[in-house]
Structure formats: C-alpha cells, structure tokens
C-alpha cells in the first residue's frame, strides 16, 4: 500500500503530497480525535457540575466555561504550552523529580481538549435540560441511583439534543488543530509551510491543505448526519 501510494503519487506536488503532507494530515486527525475525547469528558463533567446543586461545583464550572470562551484559543495554547511546561517542572522540582518535558503533541491535545471542553459543557447543559423531567423522575421512581439515572436515561436521551451543537464544535475543533503548527507540531499546515518553502510554491501547498480540511469537513458531515438519523429513531418530523 505504502509503496503503491509513493509510486502513484510521486509526480504530485513534487512528490510532497505523499507521504509528507498526508502524514501531516494523519497527525491532524489523530490530534483532533484525541482532543475530542478529552473535550467530551470535560464537557460532560462541566455540564453535570453546572446543573448540580453544589454551589462550588457550579462556580468552578461557570468560571471554566466563561474564561475559556472569552480568551482566544491561541493565547490559551501558549499559556498551557509554555506556562504548563514551567508549572510541571516547578511542581516536579519540589517533588525531587528530573526535568519533565511535555511533548508538543500532549500540549496540543490538552489545550484543544481543554478549550472545547468548555464549549461541549454548554452544549451538553442545554441538551440535558431538554430531557423531559418526567423521564428522569420515572427513573428515580424505579429506585435507580442518580448515576444509574444518568447512564440509563439522561445521557441516551440527551444525545439527540446535543448532536447539532456537538457537530458544530467538532468542525470548529478540527479547524483549530491548525494552530498547533505555531507551537512546532508537524501537522499538515506546518508541513505545507516547509514543502511550500522548499518548492517556492507556498500558495499551492496552502490551497491543497485547505482542500484537505474541506475533505475532513465533508466526511464529518456525512458521519454526523448518520449519527443524527440513528439517535432520532422514533422521533417524528414534519
């Protein structure tokens, strides 16, 4: 497969399309999917905290979503990437550990996950609120614990309401991964800069990368439509 691709794509963009650029695309996709999982976990926790009766949990979650959504992602990325490196080593030093290096990839995943966790929290909060109160009460009436109610009733029922917002967040997240090229991660934007520089065709390479982002968007759209269909089973539409 690899040899076949190298051979057949060797003439495309001076041989830079495969493996150079497409490998960068793989990194972009990996980064996006890992960040998405991180964001989903943080988003669910944030949403549950926002809806809980615990005042301090509510406050922390409110602060998290407000601060994150009020500051540009690239600024947050620099705070977490440069500052986080420093913080980890100050903590590590006091524990008597050796120098710990945070890889750019980890920093990227953590930052993007952290940012989109805030957006996901807002999406999930709205979706959970959209679950009819009676369904949740029915769960309690059967003697389920709050966790059982969440896993068996609230969560499956809120997915349908969360999907449109989730889809938007995912599409924005996928595009935000382009920022990691600034902190030196070799995603497809970074590689386009290199390849475009060496062939003196920066515009061509950026245009190709833009096209690859459109491919990611288009494929995601198909996937999201499928999910929407699946989770709307039993819902009648006009």
């Amino acid at each position, binding site marked *: 497969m690899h040899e076949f691709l190298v051979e057949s794509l060797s003439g495309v963009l001076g041989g830079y399309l495969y493996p150079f650029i497409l490998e960068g695309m793989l990194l972009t996709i990996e980064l996006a999917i890992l960040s998405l999982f991180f964001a989903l976990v943080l988003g669910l926790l944030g949403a549950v905290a926002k809806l809980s009766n615990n005042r301090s949990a509510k406050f922390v979650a409110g602060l998290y979503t407000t601060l994150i959504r009020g*500051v540009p992602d*690239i600024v947050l990325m*620099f705070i977490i990437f440069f*500052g986080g490196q420093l913080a980890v080593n100050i903590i590590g030093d006091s524990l008597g550990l050796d120098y710990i290096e945070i890889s750019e990839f980890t920093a990227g995943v953590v930052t993007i996950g952290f940012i989109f966790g805030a957006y996901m929290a807002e999406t999930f909060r709205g979706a959970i609120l959209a679950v009819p109160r009676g369904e949740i009460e029915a769960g309690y009436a059967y003697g389920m614990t709050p966790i059982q109610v969440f896993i068996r009733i609230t969560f499956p029922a809120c997915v349908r309401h969360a999907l449109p917002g989730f889809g938007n967040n995912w599409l924005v997240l996928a*595009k935000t991964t382009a*920022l990691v090229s600034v902190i030196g991660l070799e995603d497809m934007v970074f590689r386009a*800069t290199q390849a475009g520089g060496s062939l003196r065709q920066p515009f061509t390479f950026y245009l190709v*990368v833009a096209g690859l*982002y*459109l491919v990611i968007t288009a494929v995601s759209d198909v996937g999201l439509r499928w999910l929407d269909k699946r989770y709307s089973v039993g819902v009648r539409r006009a």
Partner: protein
Amino acid sequence: MDFEAITSNLPLYLEGLATTVELVVLALILGMALAIPIGLLASRKSVWVTFLPKSFIYFFRGTPLIVQMYMIYFGAGQFEWLRESFLWFLFKEAYACALIAFSLNTAAYTAEILRGAIIATPYGEIEAGRASGMSGWLILRRIILPSSFRRALPAYGNEVIFMLHGSALAGVITIIDLFGAARIVNSRHFVPFESFITAGVFYLILTFAIIWIFKRIEFRWHAHLRPRNS
C-alpha cells in the same frame, strides 16, 4: 509570579490593544460590506446565482483562518504577476494581509448568518410591501434587510467575538497586536504565564465589552419584543 515585566511593558500592551481593536473594527466593516451582497445572492433560489456565493461561504467557513491568512501572506509572493502589479504594496505588508484574510473570513460567516436570516423573512412582510406598492428594491431596503438584521443580531454578536479571537493570529505574522505584544514580552523576559495571561485578561475584557454592546443594541432593535413595562 513576576508582574514587573508586565507593568514595565504596559505601553506595549496598550499599543497592542489599539492594533487589535483597529484590526477587528476594520475587518468587521469590510466584512459586512462584502457579506451583504454575498448573503443576498446566496439567499436566491436559482442554483446559478447561488453557486459562487455559496462556494465562497463554504471555502472560508470550512478551512482554518490561519491557513487563509498564510495563503495571502506567504502565498501571494508565489505569483510573479502579483509581485509586479501595483497591488504588491498591499500583499507585502503583514498588516494588510491579515486584514484581507480577516475581512474575507468574517464576510463568509456573516453572509451565512444573513442568508439564514433572509430566507427566514416571514412571507407576509414581503406581501405587505407589495400590497403597499413598493418596488423590489424598496422592499429589500425597507423590509427584508431591516427585518433580517434584527433576526441576525444574536448570531452576529457571536461572530464578532469569534473575529476578536481570530484576530490574535495577527500576532503570528509579526504584527504587534495584543498577542504579538505578549509574545515580545515573553521572549524578552521569559515570563510565559504572566505575559500571555495579561493578554488573555485584555481579550476577556474586550469580549465582555462586545457582549455588553450587543445587549444594548438588542435592547433597542428588539424593542417590539420586550415585555411591556407597566
């Protein structure tokens, strides 16, 4: 935490703040000027008319702003004819390139918001205009646009905030906006936390200011939707 590097560099941050505000305001004005015709064309029924504006919207909404900015800033030099044309004075400047990229990007998002608002115009409003003997142009000016702007306002407020946040990318291509100022302070004094958090606080304040401004505009424009105070 060492905030001395921040206080001694406050003028730099303020300069950055001015650049950020200027860039965003100019991009929003240029973007809106482009978005109105594009949004109007994209809301037509004929596929022939909507093809170009919709492709424009699809491209600029589907690709990262940083790639668009790189295409203009680094990519323009690839074209011999552009380098020799009178337009080169624009494309060789980082500031102008960032402004062009931001304007096109916000134009696409705004056009999509407007398109959604225009196709949602209640048909009765247009019929009422016709019944009063207005021409197509007059209906557009007096009914469709004002009514759509009102509907588009909340989504546009979000877009303004996104543009503010997107404008931080200008700092990547050597422009001294808020983010650029923070980068300079960090490289001079190596205070990553303090320098970027300071920029973050400025952005946060700007974000809240935008939210407040849009609340005020909504209060006026949506006066007819306000509960009557007795």
